[in-house]
């Protein structure tokens, strides 16, 4: 079991190692971690810390994508959750209550998406688009268009504080990923989610309650997004409904795709998605450290996605498979490929 997981995430680990090595090449102190003022400092810690929102979103997004869905609203949900938490704290509530309220808002958003997808059978892109468009408006409504700043030490600790010398966001995303991962993989839930993603009709015929599963998956995504929103708000000590989580949905989807999860649903790996989130953050850090203009960030990201797309493409995979199958020793381990048509002959 352990070995197969390792084999699954090997490409991501290699890419991450390469990205980190590149970071080291442009900045020799990259792996240097020091202990100062009761907390750990260093670029490596920074990558883990700054990657927290993407990692959280990627956890929920992986499950949604595994059911052949997509959740475009996570960025807007982050804005809403941040606004809810900030206005609760400003209104005099205790920070734990504020976080709970933010989570409740995230859960409500997730429920809304889930009901649209599962009960009304609206395509996920469209169903979550509604909240993506309207959500930021709702967030601005809550903060009345201003950046709502707060000074509650409890809430700020979630974004900028430390627990046992390690920044809190790192603890949060690792804890959430562990909880979700354990619940999914130690029970049959993961298998059921994969079944729904591969073929919803046949999984329903096999007795799986696809509707409840779908709603639950969007609910988890909403909760993860709410947590990410609280962290981002706590980090800047304010809720900026206009910019909080802007384009984060794309980073989250990118993390899942880099993690090698198919957008067409089915088998998934949360670990791989988390590695994907760290790779994105590693690339961001590489661009900053190398002194390249920040403008290149998007171009590089785009080139990475295109490269991954080409590698993942069914057509390219098929050609690679044929190539490998025709070169000998592997042939014995694999089932014989179908008779090749002249057309495929030309490709390989």
């Amino acid at each position, binding site marked *: 079991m352990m070995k197969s997981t390792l084999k699954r995430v090997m490409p991501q680990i290699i890419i991450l190692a390469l990205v980190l090595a590149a970071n080291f090449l442009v900045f020799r102190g990259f792996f240097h971690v020091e202990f100062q003022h009761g907390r750990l400092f260093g670029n490596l810690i920074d990558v883990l810390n700054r990657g927290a929102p993407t990692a959280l979103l990627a956890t929920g997004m992986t499950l949604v994508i595994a059911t052949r869905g*997509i959740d475009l609203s996570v960025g807007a949900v982050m804005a809403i959750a941040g606004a809810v938490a900030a206005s609760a704290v400003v209104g005099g509530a205790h920070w734990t209550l504020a976080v709970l309220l933010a989570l409740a808002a995230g859960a409500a958003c997730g429920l809304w998406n889930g009901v649209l997808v599962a009960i*009304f*059978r*609206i*395509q996920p*892109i*469209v*169903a979550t*688009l*509604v*909240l*993506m*468009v*309207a*959500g*930021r*408006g*709702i967030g*601005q*409504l809550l903060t*009345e*268009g201003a950046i709502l700043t707060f000074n509650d030490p409890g809430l700020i600790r979630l974004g900028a504080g430390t627990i046992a010398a390690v920044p809190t966001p790192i603890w949060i995303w690792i804890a959430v990923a562990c909880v979700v991962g354990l619940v999914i993989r130690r029970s049959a839930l993961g298998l059921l989610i994969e079944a729904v993603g591969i073929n919803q009709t046949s999984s329903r015929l096999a007795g799986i309650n696809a509707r409840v599963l779908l709603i639950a998956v969007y609910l988890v995504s909403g909760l993860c997004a709410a947590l990410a929103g609280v962290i981002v708000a706590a980090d800047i000590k304010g809720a900026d409904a206009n910019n909080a989580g802007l384009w984060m949905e*794309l980073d989250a*989807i*990118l993390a899942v*795709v880099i993690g090698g999860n198919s*957008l*067409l649903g089915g088998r998934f790996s949360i670990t791989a998605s988390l590695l994907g989130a760290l790779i994105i953050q590693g690339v961001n850090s590489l661009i900053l450290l190398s002194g390249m*203009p*920040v*403008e*290149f*960030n*998007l*171009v*590089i*990201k*785009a*080139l990475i*996605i*295109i490269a991954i*797309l*080409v590698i*993942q*493409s*069914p*057509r*390219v995979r098929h050609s690679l498979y044929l190539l490998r199958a025709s070169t000998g020793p592997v042939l014995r381990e694999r089932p014989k490929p179908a008779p090749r048509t002249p057309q495929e002959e030309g490709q390989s």
Partner: protein
Amino acid sequence: MSQSTKLPLYITLATFVLAFVLCAAQYPAMASTRVVANLLTDNAFLGITAVGMTFVILSGGIDLSVGSVIAFTGVFLAVILRDTSIHPLVAFALVLLITTGFGAAMGGIIHYLEMPPFIVTLAGMFLMRGLAYVLSTESVPITHEFYDWLQSLYWKAPGGGRFRLTGALMLLTYVAAMIVLHRTRFGQNVYAIGGSAQTAQLMGVPRARTTIGIYAVSGGLAGLAGIVYTLYTSAGYSLATVGVELDAIAAVVIGGTLLSGGSGFVAGTFFGILIMGLIQTYIVFDGTLSSWWTKIVIGGLLFAFIMLQKGLGWATTARIRLLTASDARS
């Protein structure tokens, strides 16, 4: 059957007329040619983008790159007009060539690598926005006498409304798109692929050519929208038009086009754009409502029209089931 495909279009039209009448009843000044002319001018670039988006959505795809393409076009034009002495018309042709080629390339990747349009155009969105940043991170003003001349072209209607060149260009795009979609083989192929890609292929629709063509049209129209946008703002800015792709998709959906593809009309998109423009105008007229209400109302409208489409879909299948059941009995 034709009744149920045209019904969303009629509902959109009715919504627009009703909304306009209600607005005009509250603020009589809204029924002036000035407001109508501004409605066309202010939404010209969005309208042109939405035409391309209609093609893509009719074929069952999606194009997330259009907002970035508009920004890239703006920055490209601004930089090229600042640094070289080529005539704007040549620059227009050049940029249209680039954006059309870019769209065609995305279409090619989508078709030949069998990747979901969503993720391919997402990469395209990053790429174009990034290229715009690379060209210039600052807003570059455009000063050229040809631009001044283009901007000075307008027809002054009785009542003081100024119908500008860009509004006319948008209307022209819609007319051209209607002719292409309903009177050419390419248009029929777009509908066929959107209805069912597999069936279309079995019927001999050239899928590769059509898919590439669809995304080329979307890219090219986004480029045209970018040109219109520079005429509107007289500048190129790499951070401009963020999120326009969502507005365009929303306009197409509000216009009654099915997001699953195969059914819809460009005319619906036109009224979708006008409805969205009307909401903004109303908020300006009202003065007490804040700008974020635009987003919430558009989100609500989007939801209402999606549910409407679903309801119509259910009604149609229920009727077919009823018909087949009664056939079986007789």
